[in-house]
Structure formats: C-alpha cells, structure tokens
C-alpha cells in the first residue's frame, strides 16, 4: 500500500513538468517602453463589402517604441554579439499600426515583429492633441488601467500635434527617446514651468473623481522635444479644451503648491533682479457663506534667495530686501491672477483643485454645489479667488555688491 501511494504521488508530480506555460525568456520579449496614440484621419475601405459598425467608427493609430536590447548595451563587450548588426545600431524601434481597440492594434503589430509586445516596462504614454480634444482619453486609458501588465507609474502626456513624432525625437544623454523624455520630466523640479509628472494612476484617479484636470504637454520642434505647459481637460466629457503656456502653468503650480523652484524676474529702479525661489507652499481658505459667490483665499508662502542682481543695489540694506520681497510677491500675484482669470473666464474648469478643497473642509457646501461646480451653473467661475503672497528672502548669496 505504501509503495502504491508513493508511486501515485510521484506520477502526479510528473504532470507538472510537462509544461511551463508561462515561461517566456527575457530575450524573447518585445519590451515596449513608450506608446503614442493618434487618431486616424481617413477611413479607407478596401474590403468591398459591408463594414461593421466598429470599422466605421473612430480608429486609433498606435505607435509602440520597442527596445532592441542587443543594441542597448551598445556594441560593447564579448557577451551578446548577436544580431545587432542588421539594425543600424539603434537601440529602439518604433512600430505603428491602426485599429479600433488597443488590444486589436497590439495584435496586429505582433504580426510585424518577432517579439510579442511586452508592456510591463512601459514608461510613457503620449496622446495626441486631436485625440484629447475629441474626448478619447477616457477610452484609451481604460486599456492601460485595466490590464494588469501595466505599471501604474507610466507617465502620461499630451502632445502638440502628432503623438508619434514624440517618439522620434533625438535623445540626448539617453539611449532612447522615451528614456530621454522621462529624464526631462524628472527635471521639471528645476523649473516648474510644467507640471510634475502625472502618471496613469493619477489620471485614473482624476477620471473617477469627476474633476477637471491637467496633463503635461510635450512639444516637438526640429526633432527636439520639450515639456512645456499643460493641457486642460474638463470634467464633463473629459475633452481637452485648452492649453496653458509656461508662465500660466507656473502660476497654476503656485496655487496648487507644487512649485519646487522658479525664478521670477522684476525690476527695481530699472534694474533687473532675479529671485530664486527655493520653496513655495500654498494654503487655501474659503468663505462659503454665499454659495453663489464663494470667496477663496489662497495664501502662498515663498522662500528664496536673491539669484541675480543687475545693478548696484545694496543688499545689506533691510529696506532693499523688503522691496525685493514685495516686488517678488507682486510678480507672483500677477502670474497667478492671470492664470486664474484665464481659467475662470475662458475655460471655466476647476484645475486648481478648489473643489477638492471644498469637499475636504466644507463638506456640506460641497454637497450642494458639487453637481454643478464647473459645469452647468458653474459655481466655480462665479467664485472669487484672491491670492496673497508672502515672500521671505533667506539668503543673498556670496557677494553683497558686484561693483563699488
């Protein structure tokens, strides 16, 4: 009996060795690190019969940037000499295909490449402006959020013009365009004229919350890419309704408290002063007595150093420093008021997260105005946003004067 049991046991174990179903060697994977999605312009009807509803509808053009690992480590060393020779030595490969759903397109693309697209390392998703304006963000995002292969932290951006061009820019310091763009977006910290990187999880979150939101915008010029400004999406139908340029985005960042570093410039006595901001915090307060005209007060506290001084101001003079602080504050207020104006009047979409603030602090009011916050009645555009800035100069640098 013992022997019989043992043999049945071992026999069962044998079954397990028959297949390693999920074994996919690393070199057989087609690593996709970036995706760009555009809309297709014309529908070409090449099959002569009836086209199904899906085929008649909107189609997407999807471009994947594949990594060619053989060229990634750059013709170095003895190890993988492999098939690098055939592909001009570029470590990446862009492939494009069209279709109605992303899954469809991925399948079509698999026919062109020897490696099955593997999306676990995807780092960047670029959507074209056209697609965003037509409101397809929501649909396209569904694929990326629902499938477990994706990482939540892939960055999302909106491109000016065609998204595919973004994947073709020439990268500096990095091996691939996507990696380059990634570094760029990490670099935002230095200049704050665009948003901190938004990833897929954030977008999902925005969509679920039903607010308006903004996504960083990427611009391609002469094969060079730059991340400038932001794209505005409204909450009603998740369509892109406009853009913000660099200084407007800076203002936005001030209000939402996301400025890490910025350099406002202004004149004192005709001389240029550049103030280097090291940190800015913002606090929102609201007076909700009248729901038709909610007063928001945004208090911004800024710390910084004197960055550059053209002229002969004496920095050890207390009154000079005060003036610098005042002028900086005014400059910041100017920037922020401009963007508040533009958003409230022209776009009427709450991208300052004021609605979220209401929900957190003034729940009852929020319950009343929530449904029509930035649509319909649009309480948002009716409210008044007042910005108060306070600047503190912390350091003045190494020299007090440049010239005697």
């Amino acid at each position, binding site marked *: *009996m*013992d022997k019989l*049991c*043992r043999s049945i*046991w071992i026999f069962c174990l044998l079954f*397990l*060795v028959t*297949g*390693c179903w*999920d*074994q*996919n*060697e*690393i*070199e057989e*994977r087609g*690593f996709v*690190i970036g995706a760009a999605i555009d809309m297709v312009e014309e529908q070409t009807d090449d099959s002569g019969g009836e086209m199904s509803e899906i085929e008649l509808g909107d189609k997407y053009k999807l471009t994947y940037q594949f*990594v060619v*690992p*053989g*060229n*990634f*480590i750059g013709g170095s060393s*003895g*190890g*993988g*000499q*492999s*098939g*690098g020779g055939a592909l001009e030595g570029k*470590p990446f490969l862009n492939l494009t295909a069209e279709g109605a759903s992303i899954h469809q397109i991925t399948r079509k693309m698999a026919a062109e490449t020897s490696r099955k697209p*593997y999306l*676990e*390392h995807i*780092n960047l998703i670029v959507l074209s402006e056209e697609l965003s304006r037509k409101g397809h963000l929501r649909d396209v995002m569904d694929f990326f959020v629902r499938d477990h*292969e994706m*990482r939540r932290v892939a960055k999302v951006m909106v491109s000016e013009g065609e998204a595919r061009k973004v994947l073709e820019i020439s990268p500096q310091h990095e091996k691939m365009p996507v990696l380059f763009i990634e570094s760029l977006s990490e670099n935002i910290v230095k200049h704050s004229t665009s948003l901190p990187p938004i990833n897929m999880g954030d977008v999902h979150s925005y969509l679920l919350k039903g607010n308006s939101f903004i996504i960083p915008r990427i611009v391609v010029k002469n094969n060079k890419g730059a991340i400038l400004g932001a794209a505005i999406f409204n909450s009603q139908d998740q369509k892109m309704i406009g853009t913000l340029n660099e200084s407007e985005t800076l203002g936005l960042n001030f209000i939402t408290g996301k400025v890490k570093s910025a350099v406002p410039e202004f004149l004192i006595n005709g001389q240029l002063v550049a103030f280097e901001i090291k940190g800015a915090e913002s606090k929102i307060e609201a007076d909700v007595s009248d729901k038709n005209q909610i007063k928001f007060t945004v208090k911004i506290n800024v710390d910084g150093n004197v960055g550059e001084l053209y002229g002969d101001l004496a920095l050890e003079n207390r009154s000079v420093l005060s003036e610098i602080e005042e002028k900086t504050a005014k400059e910041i207020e100017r920037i922020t008021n401009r963007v508040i104006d533009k958003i409230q009047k022209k776009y009427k979409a709450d991208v300052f997260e004021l609605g979220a603030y209401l929900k957190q602090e003034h729940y009852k009011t929020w319950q009343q105005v929530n449904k029509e916050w930035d649509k319909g009645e649009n309480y948002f555009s009716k409210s008044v946003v007042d910005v108060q800035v306070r600047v503190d100069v912390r350091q003045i640098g190494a020299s007090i004067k440049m010239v005697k």
Partner: protein
Amino acid sequence: MLRHVFNKRLKYQKQNVEDKQNDMPSTIYTDIQANLDNIKRILNAPSDFIQRIFTISDSEKKCAIVCIDGLVDKDMINDQLIKNIQLGMQTAKKEVPASSDEILKKLKNEVLSTYELKIVDILDDVLLAILSGDTALFINGTDKVLLVGSKGWDSRGIDEPQTESLVRGPREGFTENIRTNTMLVRRQVKDPNLRLESSKVGRRSKRDLVVCYVEGIVHPDIVAEVNRRLKTIDIDEVAESGTIEQWIEDSSLSPFPQVLHTERPDKVASAILQGKVAILLDGTPFVLIAPTTFVSLFQSQEDYYERWIIGSLLRMLRYVAAFFAVFLPALYIALVSFHQGMIPSKLAFSIAGAREGVPFPAIIEALMMEATLELLREAGIRLPKPIGQTIGIVGGLVIGEAAVQAGIVSPVMIVAVAVTAISSFAIPSYGAGIAFRILRFGTMLAAGIFGLYGIILTYIMINIHITRLKSFGIPYSTPFAPMFYRDWKDVAIRAPITAISKRPQYMQTVDKTKIGKGDESS
C-alpha cells in the same frame, strides 16, 4: 502514507550484540603451550604474532607473553614486562610462590610496574585484548591470564582540524586515537560530573565508543535515548562516526543533518555544557553531537571568541548566505523567465541584450552551470592539494569566461552561480551546505515551472519539513517553533557574553544557569 515517505520511523529492536563464535573452544588451558597453540590456530598464525616463552626468575615456572607486533609498545614490554618478570622477583628478594595463581597475584601486586593490569579467565577477552594491543601473560599451571596494557602504535599527532579552521581559536583537533580524544575533551571540561561511558561497537570491528556528557546538566531522557539508539547498532563494521550518525538519526530521508559532527574539542565542550551529548569513536577524528537543531548549523565557534557585534553580524551574514545559496539561482530563473517586469527597466534591457544569442532558456542554463560547478567541486576534493587550488581558479575563470564567449550562457548567470557557490561555502556546517545544495536544485526546478509561485511553494515545503523534523525528540525548528524567546539571544545575533546567562531553554537542562551571580556559585 506521506509521513512514511518523508519521515521514516526507525523500528528499534533490542538485539543482543554478543559474539558467538561457535566452533572455537573458549577455554584457557593451564598448559601454556596448549594456550599458545590454540591462539595461534584461532588467529591463523599471522606474521605479526609474537610469542615469547621465558621463566620467572628463580623458579622453574614457565610463562609466555603473547602480543601483536605493531600494536604494542615494544620498549615497554621489553623493559617493564619481560625484564621485571625475569629479574624482578629476584631483585626484590621475594620468594617465588608455589602456585601459579599466587604467582600471578604477586606479579600483579608487587612486581610489575605497569599501570594497566587485569586478570581474566575468558578466552574472548584475551583475544580482544591481544588484538587491541595489550599483552597477555600466561603462566604454566593456571587458567587465569594476566592482561597488561601495552598499547602503543603510530598515529597522527594532534593537528589543526582540517575541516573547521578558525581565525581565532585553539588549533587542536581530534585524532583517530580515542584515548587522545578523550584527553582533549577532559582538558576542556574538568568537571567531576563529566561522564565518559565506553562501549564497543561493531561486530567484527569492535571499536571503542565513548558517550560523553555532563551529568547534572543534560536532561536524562536525552542520554537514555542516545544510549538506546546506540545499543541497536548491529553491523560488522563501524568505520566512521558517519555510520553511527546514519544509524541513529531520526529521518534518513531528510536532506538536513540531525546530528552534528565536529573535529574541534572546544566545540564538543561547549555542546556538552549546553546539555547535549557527544559520541566519540575510535578511528575517526569526527565526533558526533546530538541533538541538533537548525540554528546550530549556522553557529561557529568563532562567533563566541570574537566580540559580540562581530559575532552577530557574521551570524546574520550566514543567514543571508543560506538564503542566497538556496534561492538565488531560482530567483534568477523566475525573474528572467517569468516576471521580467520586476527587474528595473535598464537592467532588464541589459540582461535581455546579453542574452540575445543564448540558445537555452534560463532554467537549462542555470542547471548546466550548477551541474558544472558541482562537478568541479567534486573533482577538486580528490585532487592533490596544489592541483586542487588551480582547478578552482581554472574552472571559475576559464570555463565561465569561455562559456560566455561562446554564447552558451549569459554573464549574469555566471555572476549568480558564483555568488551562490561562495554563499554555500559560508555556512559553517558541511552537512548543511550539502543540504542546501540539494534544495537549490529542487527550488530551481520549481522556479523553472512556476516562477515566483514555485519558489514560494518550495519555501513553504521546506518550512513544513523543518518544523516536522525532530532530532532526538527536539523539534528541528526550535527555538522558532516552538518558540523560546530567551534562546533567540544566541540565534540570529550573538548577545554579549554576560547576557547569555542561562543554558538553552529548549534543552531543558537540569542545571539552568551558566554564569554565577556575584559571589554565588552557579
């Protein structure tokens, strides 16, 4: 059913280990010639058989000594034995008694100046004594025989232990001579409660076996259990303590050793002071220590001789090494073949690039490299010392490098295999090292089929096995399960000497404290 598969229960029968040599007359004759002939016949007159007939000083009585050349100390026999008998009585101006029995007694009490003397009257004892290196003295007219201790043979001097060398610590190791070994143990523990119980083991080899413990520290049930198991050994030859180990261990199917072996007297001393039992066997320098737990596999004497911070860090390093030794190749396989998403992007691309031309899937690659390494290791043991070292270097560098150049394996695999090999050498106990090697292959296979899931299931299975395993009644996974907090001070870390004031709780020792409190005796 499955329990039988993995945890064999030994059936202990009590057997009498008595020698029945049927067709040999077991009597001692009173005539010495008859005795000599008898013994010669039994032994078939080997060439190293020495017999010497002479007379006792003044009388006419003949006596004979019998011994085996090579086993005896010639000088002692010449000076002490023969000379004394031939001359001693006369010099002492003693009367030679009439009866041979009396002569024997007189020799024993007054004449012979050796310190090991015994009078026996059973032939088997005489034979055993002669074959062990003693000398038998026959006197005409009596059937009693005088056995004189005269053991003296060439043996290896006390040397540094080969398998367990330390940076800091005594450099004396056990030898093949059991008397030397007991001496070494006694030098470590001069407690009057130290017990060394001898017996003989092996039907034909009749080796000396000594069970060593400190009465008053060790729990009596453990000693009883060890003795009980030892008594059931019933084979012809017990050449090495390994045979004993395999006979008395709880489960012969487990990869883990349940009995520890060591060449170091200080380790033995420390063990018996913890409440364990040591088993010494004549003919081997490896002494057994029972019972053992999983954590003892990671303990080295050096942890105690160095200061506690270093000791603790080294211990933790060993646990990490054990983890690598078992799981690293499997993790590599799992990550590269199944869960590439877990590798950071740039590393993933590098690995993929490096593996472009490699024809085999990761698991085959891993198995190949591991198998090669095992072959190298096995070959390295048998080669003479100078070549052995070179093989290690040759194997590592040349073969590995060549394999990478040829595109058979990827460089990352070589790194993983190398780290694994080094880690498995970091574990102090050789038996544990082997156990981990076995487990490593199992885990690799599991990883090759199921990836990370396979690894975790294997980990669970190893845990189940360790928890179920017992060593002489003590669960192998003590002090983790069952949990004894106090013993943790000596497990992952090595707490300062003054903090380890009690003996291990799991041993349930009779005497609990190690360190005296102030001026009280412990």
